């Protein structure tokens, strides 16, 4: 899961930083006028390593953006999704389904997401309550979001862009069978 991996990476890096900081802090009280030279000796290797690591991460992660998915083969289903204060509406083949949508499992679905008043955020949560994908719903623009619903169950759409007083109660439901 992306969240767990991102949190784990953050935690490991944070622990390394704290450990290095503790070493530096402990040694700061001792006096050696030329002591700083050691730090700058390490820096060159650090900078090269960091730039290399970031370059590799860029290449790996930029291949996994949601925009790249939009250029993949055509979706199995297309659904229009509109946000307004404070509800979601799904439209399939020009017919409104209100805030509830039924989908077959395993199909690649493209949501054409837009808004009828202010900005909203179209965040899809899986049956366990984890965010799996999102895009902004902006008036005057259509954002295509592709999601494959492999796991049957009830998914929910929460608003992930602050849109006024009803922001926290703006919900949609997607039933996958």
């Amino acid at each position, binding site marked *: 899961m*992306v*969240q*767990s991996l*991102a*949190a784990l990476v*953050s935690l490991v*890096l*944070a622990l390394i*930083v*704290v450990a290095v900081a503790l070493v*530096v*802090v402990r040694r*700061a*009280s*001792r*006096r*050696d006028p030329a*002591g*700083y030279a050691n*730090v*700058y000796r390490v*820096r060159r290797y650090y900078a090269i390593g*960091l730039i290399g690591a970031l370059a590799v991460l*860029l290449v790996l*992660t930029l291949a*996994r*953006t*949601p*925009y790249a998915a*939009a250029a993949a083969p055509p979706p199995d289903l297309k659904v229009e999704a509109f946000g307004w204060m404070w509800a979601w509406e799904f439209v399939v083949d020009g017919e409104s389904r209100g805030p509830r949508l039924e989908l077959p499992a395993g199909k690649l679905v493209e949501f054409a997401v837009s808004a009828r*008043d*202010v*900005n909203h*955020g179209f*965040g899809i949560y899986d049956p*366990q*309550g*984890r*965010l*799996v994908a999102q*895009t*902004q719903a*902006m*008036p*005057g*623009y259509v*954002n295509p979001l592709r999601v494959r619903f492999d796991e049957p169950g009830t998914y*929910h759409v*929460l*608003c*992930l*862009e*602050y*849109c*006024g*007083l*009803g*922001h*926290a109660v703006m919900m949609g*439901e997607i039933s996958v069978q």
Partner: protein
Amino acid sequence: MSTGTSHPGRDRRVIVVWMVTSVALFLVMVTLGILMRLAQGDVMAITPQTFYALMTMHGLGMAGTLFSAGIAMVWYVAARHARPSRLAMWIAWALFLAGGLALLAATLIGKFAAGWYTLYPLPFLKATWPGWSTGLTIVSLMAMGVGWLVALLDILRALAVEHGIARMFAWDRFGAGAGREAAPAGVLIGAVCAVAGVLGTIVGAASLMMYLFQWFAPATQFDPLLLKNSMFMFGHTIVNVAMYCGIGVVYELMPGFTGRPWKVTKTVAVAWNATLAFILFAYFHHLYMDFAQPVTLHVIGQIASYSSAVPATAVTVFGLGGQLHRSGLRWSFVPAAFTLGILGWVLGGITAVVDSTIAVNLVFHNTLWVPAHFHTYFLVGFVLLLFGFVHHLLGSRAERLAKSGLVVMLTGGYLFVLMFFLGGLWSVPRRFASYQAIPYPDLVAHATRFAAWGAVGGSLFLLGALLYAASLVTGRQPAPDREG
């Protein structure tokens, strides 16, 4: 009024007034933040209307206050190496204070609640608050912006007059003048911060002009994506610059404690000029989830965000390491607060870079991971630099009480941000007045618990800040001792 720097006492007075104003407003904003977490934690009942007004004030107030404090810190550094105008600073301070108080009225009385970046067209469409509060918010922000521009442009003028443009940006490190002594690091960082601050503020001013036009002529329509870009260019830049202003003070003052110079080498010059570019282009990461935005801009956002880690760590953090390592330093309040502040900045930066990965942002954007990272580099980052600076400025004989306050602030601060990080990991959405409508009982239970513990952390932080303030009062030193 004289505009020179021949009177350190008068320079000190304007900065002390700025700092007292900034810290007082900061503590008010902290209190609003605690109230919000208490409401989310179901500890106290707050209506959505009041919650979102508090949220708007908290965000606008924090961004404005910390950027204003950052400007004052840069002005202080500039005044040690040039002659910035005190009059300009007094004008900017008056506008900052007037804007801040007017914002308090617009949000707490007028219930303006469009959030801190007031995404167009939310302030104008189906608003649940009176129109005057929208207008007052726009005018307040413009007043603050004019003040920032006055101060920042004057800092740039003063640095250019004293050092010349090539020297203040350290471009002379690469030409015929490379053999001559470089300008102090504080000058370079002050110049970078001032340029980025001016550019960000000008973009913000243009956006606010459009907002004002819309307020006067409601039938007007602007492009929401354009205004989203410009408001984030403004908002992201000023909060980013605030952080770098604090770092400028560390470069300036830390050598006084370690006895080692912090020179502007070619590496430092390249790093800070590159940082200027990264500051200006990183804001695109706020719009990753706007798929209608050209993909190139998303990619620029990720590259700029990733790249900012290189000068930040390889130059500033290693530079601090070079300052500290076996320096014989005595850990008094100021170097301790500075070092801890840089640590908080790095920890917040790590989690920011992680979130700036587009593939990760897909599941972190607008969850609590976002406030987690920026509260880390502000609350246990910049704010510690701010308190370190205040301590340098005012001093205190009650060092033990001051350090106790610092420890309590750290404990509370890290507890507070940890609860945000856990919330982000659990996909808890941000900016929810209440979690009770979320159709996942486990998620609701976790989100509520994290919020309640977050309120405990925030309260501890506030207690620590008050202990620190008490140390300033009980250990007050006469002003002449503190000229620096």
